C-alpha cells in the first residue's frame, strides 16, 4: 500500500497498529511452527539415514531369494508363494502440524505358518520384515518431502512478514503519525493565530 492511498486519520493509525501487532504475532507463531517443523524434519531425516543399511539387507536377501528360486524352480517357487496368506496394508493420511503426511498401517500380518519349508519360511519372513521397513521408510521420505515443502512455504511467509509486511506497516505507521502530528501542529498554530486575532479585535465581527 503506497502512502498516498492511506487516509490520514487516527482511526487509520489505530488500524495500522493493530495490523502490525497481528503481523508480529503471526511472525512469532510462524517462527515457532518453523522450529517444530525443522525438529520433526531432522528426526525423520535420522530415520531415513538407515536406508543404506536397509539397501544392503535387501540386496543380501534378494541374493538368497534368487538361490532359493533356482533351487525350487518356477513350479516350486510359485507354489510356495501361493501358500502364503498375504498381509493387508492400508495407507492413511494424517495431519502433522497441519501438513498432510502418509502413514502405512499393517492391518493384517502375513501368515507364514502355511509355508512348510523352514528355509523358505525364514526367508519369506525376513523379506517381509525388510519390505515393511522399506515401506515405512518410503512413507518417512514422503513425510520429509511434505514437511520440507511446507517448511519452504512457512519460511517464505515468515520472511515476507519480516522483510516486507512488518517494515511496510512500520513505515506507514511512522508516516501516518508524522502526518497526524504535522496536522495537529498546523491546527494548533491556526487556532493560536485565530485567538490572537480575536484578542486584537482584528477578526471581522469580533
Amino acid at each position, binding site marked *: 500500500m503506497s502512502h498516498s492511498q492511506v487516509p490520514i486519520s487516527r482511526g487509520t493509525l489505530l488500524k495500522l497498529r493493530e495490523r502490525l501487532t497481528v503481523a508480529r504475532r503471526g511472525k512469532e507463531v510462524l517462527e515457532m511452527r518453523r522450529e517444530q517443523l525443522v525438529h520433526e524434519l531432522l528426526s525423520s531425516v535420522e530415520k531415513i539415514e538407515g536406508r543404506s543399511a536397509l539397501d544392503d539387507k535387501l540386496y543380501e536377501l534378494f541374493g538368497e531369494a534368487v*538361490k532359493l*528360486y533356482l*533351487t525350487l524352480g*518356477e513350479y516350486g517357487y*510359485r507354489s510356495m*508363494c*501361493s*501358500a502364503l496368506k498375504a498381509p493387508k496394508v492400508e495407507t492413511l493420511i494424517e495431519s502433522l502440524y497441519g501438513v498432510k503426511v502418509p502413514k502405512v498401517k499393517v492391518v493384517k500380518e502375513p501368515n507364514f505358518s502355511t509355508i*512348510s519349508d523352514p528355509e523358505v519360511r525364514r526367508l519369506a519372513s525376513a523379506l517381509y520384515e525388510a519390505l515393511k521397513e522399506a515401506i515405512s521408510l518410503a512413507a518417512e521420505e514422503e513425510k520429509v518431502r511434505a514437511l520440507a515443502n511446507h517448511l519452504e512455504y512457512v519460511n517464505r511467509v515468515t520472511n515476507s512478514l519480516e522483510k516486507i509486511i512488518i517494515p511496510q506497516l512500520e513505515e506507514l505507521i511512522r508516516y501516518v503519525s508524522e502526518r497526524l502530528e504535522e496536522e495537529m501542529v498546523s491546527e494548533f498554530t491556526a487556532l493560536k493565530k485565530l485567538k490572537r486575532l480575536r484578542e486584537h479585535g482584528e477578526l471581522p465581527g469580533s
Partner: protein
Amino acid sequence: MENYLVVRSHGLKLHLIKPDDYEKLLKSEDPINTLAALGYDDVMNIYGRSWPEVLKAVYAKLVEKVRPLMVDESYRKLLTAFLDRLEAANCKIKLRELMGERTRPVLYYPYSHYLDLEPLSKASDIHEYVSLLSETPYGLKLRYALEVYEKTGITSILEASIDFSYCNYYLEIAKGTAFEKFVKMEKEVYKVYWGELFDMLGKTTKSVTFDFLKIEPNGLSMQFSALKDFLIKLKIMAKEESLDMSYVYAYLISCWIEATNIEKILISKRLNIESKTVRDMLLHYPLCF
C-alpha cells in the same frame, strides 16, 4: 526285457542335453530358441514358447524321454510310478494353493495319471481335495494328516503325507524288481528332507499325537546335499554296472535332472542372474559323458 531297457537307455542317453549344451543355453541371448534347437522344438510346438508354456514343454519332454522305455507291462507300471512324482508334486502345489490366499496363479506339471488336472485344480476346499486324493495312492495318509492339521494347524504334515504316500507306493511297485534298491535310496532323500515327520507318519495309528508340534522338515539345503550324495552313488553304480538296470535308473534320474537344470537356466536367463551362480546350482547327471 531288462537287456532291452539297458540297451535302449544307452541309446536314449545320446539324446540328453550335454554339459556343453548347458553352456550354450547359459550363453545364449535367446535361450528358448536355443532350447528348441537342442531337440525341444516338438514339445514347444505343442505347448508354446511363452514363459510358463516353455516350462510345461520342458516337463512334457521329460515324460517323452521316459516313454520309449515303457515297452513291457511290468516296467511300464514302474516307470509310470517314477513319473508319478510329477503328479504328487501337482498335489502339493494344489495343497499350498488351498492353504494360502490364491493371490498368484500356480503352475501345474503337464502330467496326470490317477488324477486329471482339471478336477484337481478346481478343488475349492481342503475336504474336497482330500476326498479327491483318497482315490489315489497319494492320499493314503492324508485323512490322518488332515486330522493332525485340524488339531495342530501344522501344514507340513499334509505335504509330508503326500510325499510319504508317494514313496511307499513307488516302493511297493518296485518291490522285487531291480529298481527296488534305487527307490529305497531315493526314499532316503525324501526322508532327509522331512526328517522325523516321515518316521512318525510311518508309525502312526489312528490317534492324533501332539508331538508333531515340535517337528519341522529339515529344509531344502539338506535335501539338496542328500540329493547330490545320491547322484554320486548312482553314478558310481551306473559306471560299474553299465550293462545293468543301474544304468536304466541313472538314465531316468538324468532325464529328471535335465528338466530341472533347464528350468533353472531359463529362470536365470529371465532374471538376468549371472551364469556362475546358476552353474553352481546345476545338478550333474549320474551318467558319464
